[in-house]
């Protein structure tokens, strides 16, 4: 098969599942699930085939899809080291999640819909990855948003799920506003192709950036800056960076495997991927890259802080994703061609692993609360414990684990003159990461070692538990356990694949090599030991109080638990600004416009009433009137 056929198969196969589901196959759940798994396997095979057979010079195949005289939009695939590597991650994780869901969703009545939308999700994400035209990326990007809306709101009979789905869609949409505007401006400033039309083929954009064709002023600023900042809005929304991050923790309302996919390889990864794709454009403006670095480093610390105190396992993981995504963006914005992306790959592995383990824990404990899980399940679930250990170690940055290897590359990139502030923030973030990762593992796995503290049940997980309590059956459990163990093994090795990845991207393997003797590694390990040790003291050691050191600072702890009050801010925007605009528009419509128009109608009516009052119906009144008019006319005529 040729590369373009593989591409079509990879993107198209999962889409076929969704379309067939819509066309009525959905009435037969088993068939839909079988179809979904088959297409997932096909897509995964396609991603591997494309990655392996990728020619040195890359590959591109496009076809014009929508064209007018001034703009043309293409669909197609563009295979580069970056896109095939990313595709590999997406295809593989998607297949794993589908397998895991086979167990997790075994008894859900709407199973068919779940698998169909999951397929759409994968198809859309693969389309983001392989897109040849930036408009195609945008289309797929929006479809990723749509399918995550449908998946987060999968249990839409739960008001909280419906609310979370809406929030996710609106907040990312808010960022897409900038993205769309940026795309439009980019389109308008691209060099004109033969035939007089402009297009947004990614290859051409990168070429234009390299040739400095985009230099120029836009609204008084450098064009790269304006376009870059606008595109960055979309990335901030999609990758859940400050201030558009608060949808991601709420997105836990979806089924856990969805979170696993959404947090690792799709949706949030789309933002980072777009940054990696257009990295030269962003780096062409120092303002844009500094803003990106600033947002990312702030978010990294901020989100890690919330993860340190949150009592709910899935929410801790969600805040951790936000923080880790910031690390990726920092690597990319600091100019490294491989660091951020490498971290994306390893993070996809260990975060997916953590979520899949969390699924088993929550399923067994019937609760999402960390303490509760520790009390009821603890280390009794072998597979989940293994997953949690490997995942948490990786997340915390234990040397030689996947997360350490990639984060070290990012830190090395930041450890340069000019980036000092960001570097220290990143180190602080690392220490905090080590703290919450250790805390999570310790609370769950060493529960028997300490006094049981008061437990807190969160509203959201209670409801998910209702769903979970439905499933019984050994087969479902063993499928889930096997998936987790398999992924744990993969994750263990993932960190050592840096050189291969760099090679695949066409870069020097030196870029990901770690200088074990450097001060950077020393500092990173210090951060790990500081954070991890503190958490161990608070939670892990025998006889620990099981209260974070932050409980000594109630004001800060409360703020962190509330997610830095960001939700409150957004609620203020929605309740005050949006609602205010709505009310004033309503007021104008009803009071000003409609009333003045009704006023015209009323005016006509009262004019009629006035005129009608002349019509007394009395014959002699008419005659007198006639006479009077005649007399006046006569006088006027004589006057002349």
């Amino acid at each position, binding site marked *: 098969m040729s590369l373009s056929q593989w591409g079509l198969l990879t993107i198209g196969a999962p889409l076929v599942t969704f379309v067939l589901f819509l066309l009525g196959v959905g009435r037969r759940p088993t068939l839909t699930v079988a179809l979904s798994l088959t297409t997932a396997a096909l897509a995964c095979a396609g991603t591997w085939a494309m990655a392996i057979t990728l020619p040195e010079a890359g590959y591109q195949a496009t076809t*014009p*899809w*929508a*064209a*007018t*005289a*001034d*703009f043309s*939009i293409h669909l197609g695939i563009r295979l580069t080291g970056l896109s095939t590597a990313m595709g590999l991650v997406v295809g593989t994780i998607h297949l794993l999640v589908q397998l895991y869901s086979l167990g997790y969703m075994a008894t859900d009545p709407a199973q068919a819909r779940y698998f169909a939308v999951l397929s759409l999700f994968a198809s859309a994400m693969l389309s983001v990855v392989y897109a040849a035209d930036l*408009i195609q990326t*945008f*289309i*797929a990007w*929006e*479809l990723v948003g*749509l399918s995550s809306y449908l998946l987060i*709101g999968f249990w*839409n*009979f*739960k*008001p909280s*799920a*419906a*609310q979370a*789905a*809406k929030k996710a*869609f*609106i907040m990312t*949409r*808010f960022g897409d*506003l900038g993205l*769309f*505007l940026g795309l*439009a*401006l980019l*389109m*308008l400033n691209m060099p004109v192709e033969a035939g007089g039309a402009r297009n947004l083929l990614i290859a051409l954009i990168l070429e234009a950036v390299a040739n400095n064709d985009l230099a120029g002023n836009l*609204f008084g600023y450098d064009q790269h800056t304006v376009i870059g900042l606008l595109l960055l809005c979309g990335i901030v929304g999609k990758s859940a960076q400050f201030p558009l991050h608060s949808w991601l923790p709420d997105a836990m309302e979806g089924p856990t495997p969805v979170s696993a996919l959404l947090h690792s390889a799709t949706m949030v990864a789309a933002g980072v991927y777009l940054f990696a794709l257009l990295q030269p454009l962003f780096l062409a403006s120092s303002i844009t890259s500094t803003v990106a670095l600033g947002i990312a480093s702030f978010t990294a610390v901020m989100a890690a802080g919330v993860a340190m105190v949150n009592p709910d396992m899935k929410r801790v993981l969600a805040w951790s994703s936000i923080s880790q995504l910031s690390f990726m963006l920092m690597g990319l914005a600091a100019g490294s061609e491989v660091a951020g992306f490498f971290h994306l790959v390893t993070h996809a592995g260990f975060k997916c692993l953590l979520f899949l383990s969390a699924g088993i824990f929550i399923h067994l404990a019937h609760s999402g609360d960390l303490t509760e899980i520790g009390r009821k399940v603890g280390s009794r679930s072998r597979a989940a414990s293994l997953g949690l250990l490997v995942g948490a170690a990786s997340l915390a940055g234990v040397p030689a684990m996947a997360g350490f290897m990639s984060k070290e590359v990012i830190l090395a990139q930041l450890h340069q003159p000019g980036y000092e502030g960001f570097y220290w923030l990143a180190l602080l973030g690392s220490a905090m990461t080590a703290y919450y990762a250790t805390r999570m593992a310790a609370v769950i796995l060493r529960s028997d070692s300490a006094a049981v503290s008061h437990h807190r049940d969160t509203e959201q997980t209670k409801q998910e538990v209702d769903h979970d309590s439905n499933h019984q059956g050994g087969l479902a459990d063993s499928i889930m356990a096997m998936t987790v163990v398999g992924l744990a093994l993969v994750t263990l090795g993932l960190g050592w694949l840096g050189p291969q990845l760099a090679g695949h991207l066409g870069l020097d393997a030196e870029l990901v090599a770690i200088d074990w003797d450097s001060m950077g590694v020393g500092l990173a390990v210090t951060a790990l030991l500081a954070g991890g040790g503190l958490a161990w003291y608070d939670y892990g050691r025998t006889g620990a109080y099981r209260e974070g050191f932050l409980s000594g600072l109630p004001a800060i702890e409360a703020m962190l638990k509330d997610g830095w009050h960001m939700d409150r801010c957004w609620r203020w925007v929605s309740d005050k600004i*949006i609602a205010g*605009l*709505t*009310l004033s*528009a*309503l007021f*104008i*419509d009803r009071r000003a*416009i*409609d009333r003045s*128009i009704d006023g015209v*109608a009323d005016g006509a009516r009262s004019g009629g009433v006035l005129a009608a009052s002349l019509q007394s119906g009395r014959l002699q009144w008419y005659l007198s009137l006639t006479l009077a008019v005649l007399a006046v006319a006569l006088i006027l005529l004589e006057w002349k």
Partner: protein
Amino acid sequence: MAWLDSHLLTSILLCPVIGLALTALIPASRTGAIKLSAAIVSGISCALSILLWQRFDPSTSRLQFTERMEWLPDLGITYIVGIDGLSLPMVLLTGIVFFTGVLTMWELENRVKEYFAFTMALVAGVFGVFISQDLFFLFLFYELAVLPMYLLIAIWGSTRREYAAMKLTLFLLAGSALLFPALIGLSHYSGLNTFDLTLLSDANTDWGGMGIIIFLFLYLGFGVLAGIFPFHTWSPVGHVAAPTAVSMLHAGVLMKLGSYGVLRVGMQVMPEEMVRWAPLIAALAVCNILYGAFVALGQTDLKYVIGYSSVSHMGVVMLGLATMSAAGISGAVFQMFAHGIMTALFFSSIGHIYDHTHTREISRLGGLFTTMPRASTVFIIAGMAGIGVPCLASFWAELLVFIAAVKKWPLAGALAIFGLVVSALFVLRVVQRSFFGPERDDWKDMPDMGNFMATPRVILAAVLLLFGFAPFLMLDQLAASVDALVQVLEASP
């Protein structure tokens, strides 16, 4: 086939006329026969418009399938029908909405005969406007399309129907009162003493001082029907009061008459005036988009939400026209088509819900996705189209219009794009409150759409998806005509 080719447009026009005659001949008590004849007639006209689409030659901007007949030579009135790329999508839209609208009203029981008779008259008028190439006939058909609306709403309507019907009729007649002198003015001041649109557009008349007056009369006259701000309040009220299929025809097709009129008469005959007034038109269009979306956000009645969303989406059409670029005009025509199908889908879904729950209050509904999965899916598909989700037809339309708008007026473009976020807010708000959430006891036993009643909805959704996946189907048909129009506009000072 040759005969059909040369009389295709008249055949399409005659379909509803024949339907009207048939309906008149069948006794009122035989409602089944009336519905069947309406379905057959509308099916034929839909099939003919698809045939027209398929036989249309996209390579030329000249009128095709033309037929001419002298009517009143002394007054310069000729019966001319013909279509180009700009009217072709409108004819197809009318055919589809007509057919699906008839199917949607299959369960009607009250005064069936009169209902279908008025619908036929209305559709005859709509088809007539889209294919007429003579201003006099265009106006005649325009009036024919507007007047049955009054009866359809006043007799079969719901909430405040007399008020709505009266408001709508008065608004539209006020528009006509502006249009008629404008059309006479076109014929008179061109010095040609003709109503033939092609002759008038080719004449390159220097309108002098009269240009401003005639163009503004045309813009306002047609614009009222297109729901331009601030003359839009009749339309949501009308949508709400009208019965389901009438809302579908009204929002889906009738509002397009206005924007089509601006495009066909305003832009084509008076390009210089269009160039002069484009900023004003664009500003009002942006008002439509944002203001309509915000007002929709504040509504409590499902139909009002959709009614105001139409106001917002028609703003996109007018904005596209005002950019006067190939992308903008193609996008505008595409949006007219996509919006027509989309609102028809919206109203047909709401119609089903209202028929069974007897309420349209967003807060009283809830959990409908569990009770009526089909009706809800239909609504969600329409909603996604409404907020410009890709793979549904309106995405492409909005994409083209917004890029064109950003090119010409960056601020207006940015505001219009912001309108999309507000659209997302109001659509998702409705979805969340009315369709998601726990099932309500009140609606537990409500039936979902049956297979037959689902058919028209499936057709509409399929059309949205088809053009969403394959926008080139539409854009290729438009290209030649749009390019010709853009050249005329660019040549104007």
